């Protein structure tokens, strides 16, 4: 069996599996925020939010930058696009397959019509 491992995607999907982290992504999609802002908004401790941001940062979904004593977070889009591309490729495959299946089924219908006519 050919195994296509995609460690990036594994970690992206793992990161997106958590509702808080999806919320953080949505929030950062609107505007940058510090970890303290995010912790307040999601009613979490600073430590808890740091962990979530850490998970997102490792996947490349979020980038952070320390400015003075504040760590600013912003969205990093690259990996999200990768995840979408994966589904898109899967869809392309099925689109091509089903288009060929249309032809096969059409051919069957044509044969049936001809056979039906011949029987009359």
């Amino acid at each position, binding site marked *: *069996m*050919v*195994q*296509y*491992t*995609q460690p990036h*995607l*594994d970690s992206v*999907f*793992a990161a*997106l*599996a958590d509702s808080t982290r*999806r919320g953080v992504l949505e929030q950062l999609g609107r505007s940058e925020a510090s970890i303290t802002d995010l912790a307040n908004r999601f009613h979490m401790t600073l430590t808890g939010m740091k962990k979530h941001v850490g998970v997102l940062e490792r996947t490349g979904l979020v980038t952070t930058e320390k400015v003075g004593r504040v760590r600013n977070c912003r969205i990093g889009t690259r990996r999200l696009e990768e*995840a*979408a591309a*994966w*589904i*898109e*490729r*899967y*869809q*392309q*495959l*099925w*689109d*091509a*397959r*089903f*288009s*060929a*299946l*249309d*032809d*096969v*089924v*059409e051919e*069957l*219908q044509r044969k*049936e019509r001809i056979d039906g006519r011949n029987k009359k």
Partner: protein
Amino acid sequence: MDATRNSESATERNPVTVERTSERELVVTRTFDAPARLVFEAWTKPELFRKWWVPKSMGMTLRSLEMDARTGGSYRLDFGDGMDFFGTYLEVTPHSRIVWTNEEGGDNGSVTTVTFEEKGGKTLLVMSEVYPSKEALDAAGTGAADAMHETFGQLDDLLAQLHA
């Protein structure tokens, strides 16, 4: 993550919808302008199945195909170079439902269920692939789809060269 995509219908082709409905499941839907018994036939007769399962754009050649589409029957698709896909039909109910295992994936193999629902001479096909775990789905990477994507890439390059 719920990722839904609809194919752009540049042609009159019916659209395909792919949706990751849960951590472990991918669902593909498509309507066919034909009765269910004909669509079902194309999924269960090897001489018909091989005509569409490996479309040209996939850039792969099916070396051999064995399929015994009955409940408890088995199948094997051999693409050469050690790449083969095989499993068992868990259920084959004429014109309405086919369920099979994908055993080449070992413990991470998915179970595929295809249902055919006829309405007004058209058939709604729903295909679900359920993986044993979220990790298995993520890692599957839809190998065949990746291979096809590469083929598209090669085709793009070739077309670009021809136009140059």
